[in-house]
């Protein structure tokens, strides 16, 4: 199944495609057979973890630093009036160049029903930017709610481990429903309905222009995620993720999985925001030696950090050497 089709399916909530026997390539199939005949022993896993240690935090640290710097740039630019990055995440000027968040621009165009030149320029700039950087990279590397949500998730996982609470999952297709409903609402009502509750816009504005009662809504979302459902907003609701996911369909920057050394222990799926994109890491599901992770992936790099066998890595398609 092509990368674009499979990505679209996953973005809109379908379960990841499990390749049939005929779809699995010759080399991948040999690997699967070999692993079946020679299963990893307990000792193998012990060696694996010993070599890997507790895993690195390289990508997470880089990402958190980037996310904080991007958001601080807005704050500092306004606070010191240096006109470096004016505006908020919804729309801005970076040293004078227009930038517009794709989803906010979409909502405005649907509600307002006019196309504004500056908005077109800003949208194209941002489109190209995230096209090069991987689409949903916006989520993990720029969205301030993502960071707060990650902290909420840490708390959530602690509570789950202590059996204080349990996680409640939703049907992933509900995000597609939200996407359609919010697009229709903007079109029909003539108001940017989603912007009213978008924690991304609310937090970005609160950081730059000062806090307000809108932060109570963000707080409620975080509480919901801590006590009821892990990463619920990003996983099941946010249309921004879908918009950038579509951009990522044709992005060359992806996480690539290599099946050869994978022990299929599933550490990557445990930490992933969107674990369905890592379905090929389940034993026997990889159709080829190398499989690119679908466009619903936020390129956060947590799987790259956690993988004990170096089976997951960032690649720039066309630049990386062919394996």
């Amino acid at each position, binding site marked *: 199944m092509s990368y674009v089709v499979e990505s679209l399916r996953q973005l809109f909530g379908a379960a990841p495609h499990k390749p049939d026997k005929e779809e699995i390539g010759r080399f991948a199939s040999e690997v699967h057979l070999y692993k079946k005949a020679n299963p990893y022993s307990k000792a193998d896993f012990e060696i694996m973890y010993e070599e890997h240690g507790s895993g690195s935090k390289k990508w997470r640290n880089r990402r958190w630093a980037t996310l904080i710097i991007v958001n601080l740039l807005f704050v500092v630019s306004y606070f010191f009036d240096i006109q470096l990055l004016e505006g908020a995440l919804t729309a*801005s000027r970076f040293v004078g160049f227009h930038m517009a968040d794709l989803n906010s621009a979409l909502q405005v165009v649907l509600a307002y029903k006019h196309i504004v030149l500056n908005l077109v320029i800003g949208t194209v700039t941002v489109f190209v930017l995230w096209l090069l950087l991987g689409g949903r990279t916006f989520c993990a590397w720029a969205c301030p709610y993502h960071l707060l949500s990650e902290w909420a998730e840490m708390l959530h996982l602690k509570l789950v481990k202590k059996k204080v609470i349990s996680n409640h999952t939703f*049907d992933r297709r509900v995000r597609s429903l939200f996407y359609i409903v919010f697009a229709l609402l903007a079109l029909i009502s003539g108001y940017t309905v989603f912007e009213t509750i978008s924690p991304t816009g609310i937090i970005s504005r609160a950081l730059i222009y000062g806090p307000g009662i809108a932060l109570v809504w963000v707080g409620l979302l975080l509480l919901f995620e801590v006590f009821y459902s892990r990463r619920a907003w990003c996983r099941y609701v946010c249309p921004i993720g879908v918009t950038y996911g579509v951009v990522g369909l044709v992005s060359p920057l992806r996480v690539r999985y290599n099946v050869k050394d994978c022990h299929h222990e599933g550490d990557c799926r445990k930490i992933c925001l969107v674990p369905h994109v890592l379905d090929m890491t389940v034993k026997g599901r990889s159709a080829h030696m190398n499989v690119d992770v679908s466009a619903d992936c936020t390129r956060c790099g947590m799987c790259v950090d956690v993988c004990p066998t170096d089976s997951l890595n960032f690649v720039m398609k066309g630049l990386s050497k062919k394996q």
Partner: protein
Amino acid sequence: MKQDNKPAKRAKPRPSAKRRAQSRREFIRSSVLAAGVVGFSLLGFLPVARGTSLRLRPPGSIKETFDEQQFLASCIKCGQCVQVCPVEAIKLADLDEGFGVGVPYIDARAQACDFSCDGLQCVLACPTGALTHELDYPADTRMGFARLSRPESCLAVKGKGFRGQARGPGFTGLLRYEEVDRWNPIPVADHPYDLELCDLCVRQCPIEIRITQCAAEAAEAGTENKARVAAKIGNECPPRHAIALEPVEGGDGVMRMQPVIKEGCVGCGVCEMICPPDPAAIVIDIHEITDMAS
């Protein structure tokens, strides 16, 4: 298609009872989530429908009286207008204004728009045209319309003068006084007045100040430059007066001086900000922009 000699497509194994119960629960949960989130977002319509989100908006806001739909729809809620305003008159609305969250407004009593940016910077900064780029000069805008709402507290009507800081020592609002600093607005509290008859609303009106300047330039210009000065009328020189202190007969038949709002008022709110009594005798109406030529 030859399906006959192909083995029947592998029937999907029926999911276990536990699995089915799980997906049923997920479905119900997801429906509740969808209804909850969409329902909450639609609450944002209430302040708009009830008109409680109506505000004095920055110059050039594309809206009609009582109807801000176009403005709220076209605004991308980024606050670039906030950032360029030299007197920080523009604020962004909070969630209690529903769909108006993140949309700019001006609280004139706290800090009016005094046009000290000269070139309508907020309009230039707006990336979506929610503040229409068709405006070039302050006199082109119509944010609202001033109204002497409490003539009984107006110092001029009472025949009183004014001495001291217009809004007291604690007031943080800014105004540009060209005679003090051409480029930088200063706190109103740093600029005390001593007036025999209070005319602050007329004296500080940005439109009136500009008209006076243009008249002075015209007088200085002499005959050869008259044409150039005349060309400025209607552009940076406001074509119509905004406010004047005029004798008006009160209910008791006594003539008193009173601020009278003229057609050229743009609703910037400086008169409301500078008015010494509390609450202000003069306010900006965003609704009644029809009773202009009073």
